[in-house]
């Protein structure tokens, strides 16, 4: 046993113990709740133990979290998790983010939210408590096992956040792990690798917890559905699960679009949505959940579509697990820019498959006994079109999942399909027509009645929305010059849906706020799509240049700005004014001007795109955006020379030149000649060996108009020590430095290192700038959607209480 110096193993031991307790207590709780669900007498006997072990599980989870915070806050870099995700210079508020940057921490976040929801369900679910909590506690046991980090029959189970660096598999046996004072002598342990600078952003403090709360909330309708199938109590669960389903829709939807906001604000993707597999896999459960929620409403009103309700409700949670498999297993590696590293793929895959098989089995066994209405719905009924809408949502989700799963399909079928060349275009071409159908349904279906509707009356009610939306969409299409037929139809549909939902609330619901949820949420959804459509279809890259022959090179979308020069860009004139280093951010000040009619420049605004310099993670360009009411001007740097120059030596950009006497080479728009090479040797006459040697290289440079300038650089060897003396040369304003660095006797040539003065070339940056019109519609839509769903959720909770 080695007594390691400076390690803080106590907190890790306690944390690891908490993990084990949390896992065992979750299993215990699942088992006891299972027993309790058997009969009323068993319920009385087993419930205290079940609840008790769930609380023990909960306290242990809190214990794990506290231990992790102690580790991170005190910079215990001997722990892998802390070293990997934190650093001494990390501000305290970002320590919260490094808590969930890693796999282990994000599982813990998920477990934490499930725990909170589990406790709420224990208090609220009454008769449903035992069966529902059986499922919740089992899920908790599954998730806890992902962070155990132990071995069972030689198979690794999970990865623990409390593992020491020296105990990592790849380090075991290395010499330094056997040194008691390794923390002092291995320089890497002085500081952690730090939080990925991309995640050092306020959105990253709030986006993951909201997203994970959304994931956790999808668990509740799933648990109710499973409990209902299991206990053959097919009818009541819908009313219980409905408000939770709406809560999940609200939180998950907000979480997803917060991720979009983060991407837009601080990534240089140039947009808020890129159909990236990681984004897609969180969107799909949301879409399915929305479909499930609408079917629940249909069932509540008409007692039909119960089978589809079960299927979609269960599917949405399975898609959450599938999403975590896709993003965490590393299978997306080739197709996604932000997939996590792998390591847990088999364990996750086993969980995923067991959830799928379990759900399919329970559905098959109970399918026949699920109440089913034989009678057909009337095609003018609300439930018929809500059902159609849900099916269209299902298709939308299926298309996204299928295309995102390409790497999985390749693995299963052994094929070698590559992602489509223009994936974004392909997604849009599927999803835009689907969105048209969905949004038209959103506009009309509210007016329909359950059972049978009077179509003439409805047509009268929606005619004003129809006419005004047609007129409005043409006005907008004219202003933004958007004539693509699909886009135009989509634009009209979104305007129509927003208007008709507004009038439905004003006229039919008489402006009742309690019932306003669905109208507000639908208006919000229409605005999200409208904003996404207008800002993306009409996004205008204003930093275009015409320097390239091929039209669609990405390089064509950049502009080169020399320091101090004002350059035309789109309708603006831009000036790269200065750059300063603020902390680790090299920030560039770019001023925007308008050209007035009298030829004067009028200052508009300044944008400060910056490059985050991070030695460990690499430099990251972050955008800067000016928000206006009707459009955004977005910009980020695609190139900037961020190297700090040595103040004592203003020469940089080393070039190596091999040259023979009498030869010429082209260097920096000049001809460079080696005019002559003089040798001064002090030779020992007896041994004929050169003692001291001095070589003088005379260099001559010719510029484009034929003018010459010259210098000499010396290479001297004295007492077997070589030394070089640089030569300086000026051609007008251009300054160069040459150093005679080597002699190659075999080739008969010498090597010269040539440097340019930093003033030879003006500093420059390369920038990309895009105008996103009407993008604020999107953000307003997101907020309305969240508010609307929240109102609907409150209303549903009130109904459940009654």
């Amino acid at each position: 046993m080695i007594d390691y110096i400076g390690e803080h193993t106590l907190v890790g031991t306690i944390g690891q113990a908490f993990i084990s307790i949390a896992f065992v207590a979750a299993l215990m709780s699942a088992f006891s709740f299972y027993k309790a669900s058997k009969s009323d007498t068993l319920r009385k006997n087993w419930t205290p133990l079940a609840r008790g072990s769930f609380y023990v599980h909960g306290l242990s989870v809190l214990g794990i979290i506290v231990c992790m915070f102690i580790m991170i806050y005190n910079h215990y870099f001997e722990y892998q998790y802390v070293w990997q995700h934190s650093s001494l210079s990390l501000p305290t508020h970002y320590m919260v983010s490094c808590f969930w940057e890693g796999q282990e921490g994000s599982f813990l976040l998920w477990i934490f939210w499930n725990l909170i929801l589990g406790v709420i369900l224990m208090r609220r679910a009454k008769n449903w408590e035992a069966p529902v909590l059986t499922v919740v506690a089992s899920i908790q046991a599954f998730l806890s096992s992902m962070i155990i980090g132990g071995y069972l029959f030689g198979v690794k189970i999970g990865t623990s956040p409390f593992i020491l660096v020296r105990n990592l598999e790849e380090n075991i046996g290395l010499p330094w792990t056997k040194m008691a004072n390794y923390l002092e002598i291995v320089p890497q342990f002085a500081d952690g690798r730090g939080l990925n600078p991309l995640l050092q952003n306020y959105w990253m403090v709030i986006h993951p917890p909201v997203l994970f709360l959304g994931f956790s909330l999808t668990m509740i309708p799933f648990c109710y559905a499973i409990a209902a199938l299991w206990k053959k109590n097919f009818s009541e669960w819908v009313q219980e699960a409905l408000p939770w389903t709406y809560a999940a829709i609200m939180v998950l939807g907000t979480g997803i679009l917060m991720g979009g906001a983060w991407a837009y604000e601080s990534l240089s993707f140039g947009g808020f949505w890129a159909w990236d597999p990681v984004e897609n896999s969180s969107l799909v459960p949301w879409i399915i959940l929305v479909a499930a929620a609408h079917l629940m409403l249909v069932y509540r009103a008409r007692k039909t579509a119960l089978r589809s309700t079960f299927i979609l409700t269960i599917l949405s949670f399975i898609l959450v697990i599938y999403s975590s498999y896709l993003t965490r297993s590393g299978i997306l590696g080739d197709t996604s820019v932000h997939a996590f590293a792998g390591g847990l793929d088999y364990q996750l895959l086993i969980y995923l498959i067991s959830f799928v098989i379990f759900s399919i089995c329970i559905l098959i066994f109970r399918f026949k006994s699920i109440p089913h209405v034989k009678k057909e719905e009337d095609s003018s009924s609300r439930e018929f079109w809500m059902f159609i809408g849900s099916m269209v949502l299902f298709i939308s989700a299926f298309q996204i999942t299928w295309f995102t799963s390409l790497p999985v399909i390749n693995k299963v079928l052994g094929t070698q399909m590559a992602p489509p060349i223009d994936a974004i275009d392909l997604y849009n071409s599927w999803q835009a027509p689907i969105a048209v159908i969905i949004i038209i349904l959103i506009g009309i279906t509210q007016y329909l009645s359950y059972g049978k509707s009077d179509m003439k009356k409805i047509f009268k009610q929606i005619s004003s929305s129809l006419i005004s939306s047609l007129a409005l969409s043409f006005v907008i299409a004219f202003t933004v010059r958007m004539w693509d037929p699909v886009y135009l139809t989509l634009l009209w549909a979104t305007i129509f849906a927003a208007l008709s939902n507004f009038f439905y609330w004003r006229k039919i619901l008489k402006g009742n706020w309690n019932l306003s949820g669905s109208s507000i949420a639908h208006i919000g959804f229409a605005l999200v799509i409208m904003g996404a459509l207008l800002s993306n279809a009409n996004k205008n890259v204003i930093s275009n240049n015409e320097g390239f022959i091929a039209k669609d090179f990405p390089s064509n979308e950049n502009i080169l700005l020399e320091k101090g020069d004002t350059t035309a860009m789109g309708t603006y004139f831009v000036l790269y004014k200065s750059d300063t280093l603020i902390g680790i951010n090299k920030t560039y000040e770019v001023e925007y001007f308008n050209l007035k009619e009298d030829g004067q420049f009028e200052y508009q605004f300044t944008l400060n795109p910056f490059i985050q310099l991070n030695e460990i993670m690499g430099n990251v360009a972050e955008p800067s955006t000016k928000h206006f009411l009707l459009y955004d001007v977005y910009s980020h740097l695609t190139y900037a020379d961020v190297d700090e120059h040595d103040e004592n030596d203003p020469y940089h950009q080393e070039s190596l030149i091999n040259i023979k006497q009498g030869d010429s080479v082209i260097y920096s728009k000049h001809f460079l000649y080696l005019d002559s090479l003089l040798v001064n040797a002090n030779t020992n006459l007896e041994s004929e060996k050169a003692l001291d040697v001095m070589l003088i290289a005379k260099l001559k440079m010719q510029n484009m108009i034929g003018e010459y300038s010259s210098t000499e650089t010396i290479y001297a060897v004295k007492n077997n020590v070589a030394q070089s003396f640089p030569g300086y040369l000026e051609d007008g304003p251009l300054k160069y430095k040459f150093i005679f660095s080597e002699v190659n006797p075999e080739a008969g040539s010498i090597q010269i290192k040539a440097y340019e003065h930093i003033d030879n070339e003006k500093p420059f940056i390369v920038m990309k700038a895009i105008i996103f019109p009407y993008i604020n519609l999107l953000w307003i839509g997101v907020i309305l959607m969240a508010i609307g769903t929240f109102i609907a959720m409150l209303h549903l909770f009130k109904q459940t209480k009654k």
Partner: protein
Amino acid sequence: MKKTEIILILLVAVIIGVIVSLTYNASTYITFTDAEKQMGREFTVIGELNKDKEILFEPRLNVLTFYASDSLQNERKVYFYDSKPQDFERSEKITMTGFATDSGFTASTILMKCPSKYNEQQFIEQDTITLPKL
């Protein structure tokens, strides 16, 4: 026929459409030599960066040139007309979409697999540890 059946048939039809659409639209991973048989057509090539040869980024032209070899070890010069991605030199596998020309492969997008990116395994490599003499 009942309405439910019609809806089901339509649903299945669209789902088959989605499945077929992917196989139809999916690109194929091929080698440089195959790409050269149809110059100008876009393909996806997975290659490995040759770290011994010059990786040159010309910021004024916004062109990155490098050498990569495909799965059959054919090496080509690659022109990527965009700014140099972060940590490019450290990448191992590069997925490139683009087309072949006489002078090399012109990539319009590249996606790199980096050992550093989010990687949990690569921890402290032994050779990077410089232990002071005791």
